[in-house]
């Protein structure tokens, strides 16, 4: 379940980038990450971990959008690109059994950060989920 650590890293980098752009009062709105099918990261677990990180903070409701990146699998014997869904870890052509060439699918990238910039006049603490209130 290293998705929690990955989600924390996404949160930390996204917040740092947004703050560098617009100051301390930013509120994260949506984040887009690219996750490859060979990255050993489960997108559902990652989204779940993300929710548990932002809940109760001023970033509560911020959405993590995962762009799933399948690897490109080409069989030089069949001269065809192969589907990379189930069992895509095997570097073997499902049709002819020869070795296939695999490219990509290792993405683990932070792509986009969307955030709101609160005006200093409307600055107020967010007490919507005080039970989980975290000072971030």
């Amino acid at each position, binding site marked *: 379940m290293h998705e929690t650590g990955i989600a924390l890293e996404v949160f930390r980098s996204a917040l740092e980038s947004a703050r560098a752009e617009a100051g301390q009062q930013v509120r994260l709105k949506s984040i887009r990450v690219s996750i490859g099918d060979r990255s050993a990261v489960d997108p559902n677990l990652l989204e779940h971990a993300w929710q548990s990180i932002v809940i109760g903070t001023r970033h509560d409701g911020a959405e993590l959008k995962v762009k799933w990146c399948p690897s490109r699998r080409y069989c030089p014997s069949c001269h065809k690109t192969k589907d990379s869904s189930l069992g895509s870890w095997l570097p073997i052509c499902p049709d002819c059994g020869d070795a296939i060439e695999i490219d990509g699918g290792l993405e683990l990238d*932070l792509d986009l950060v969307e955030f709101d910039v609160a005006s200093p006049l409307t600055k107020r603490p967010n007490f919507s989920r005080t039970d989980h209130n975290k000072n971030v």
Partner: protein
Amino acid sequence: MSEIIKIRRRILQENDHKASQLREQFKNEGTLVVDLVSSPGSGKTTLLEKTIQHFSERLDCAVLVGDVATELDANRLQAAGAPAHQIVTGGACHLDAHLVAAGLEQANFDEVDMLFLENVGNLVCPTSYDLGEDFKVVLLSAAEGEDKPAKYPAIFTRAAVCLITKSDLFPYVDFDLDVARQNIKAHNPNCRILELSAKTGAGMDAWCNLVKERLKVKRTVVV
């Protein structure tokens, strides 16, 4: 007012950066660094005890060992004769480059020929983290069954070496060595596969020679 900024950076950039620093440091020191990954109970600590004893008079080894709790493993490794430092992760299921760097700072080892990183017992999570190692070794013990490479492919595709451990148990647990080898090779044709029993000593020489050879190659490249 809402803004969108493009980032385009690796999520684990900080880890990768720290791992590069460690790799540079290990290169300058001429230390071979091996990351050992496996499920809990497949024999990482016993393998290291015997490896340390094998090299005791010829090469200096040290171990950083990660576990969720306790210092049991570090104590065992120290008793085997090597400086060992326990990283208690307190819940984290893998080592990362920052934990290794912090562990090294605390341990304050003398310069060694070989540093072994005994990862937290887990076949999934350690896969994504570069620790600055020269290569990863995955252990598969006879009692786990020969299907593990197919079930947990990520680590088997990334490990340079796979050790099939507890070979003394083969006859008792119906372990099919050919099938295990096929499963590993199917995922990683370049993987070097060795079977051994740290308990009986069978196969230990081949493993120790492999490590010694890799150290020699690393130092030749450095010089």
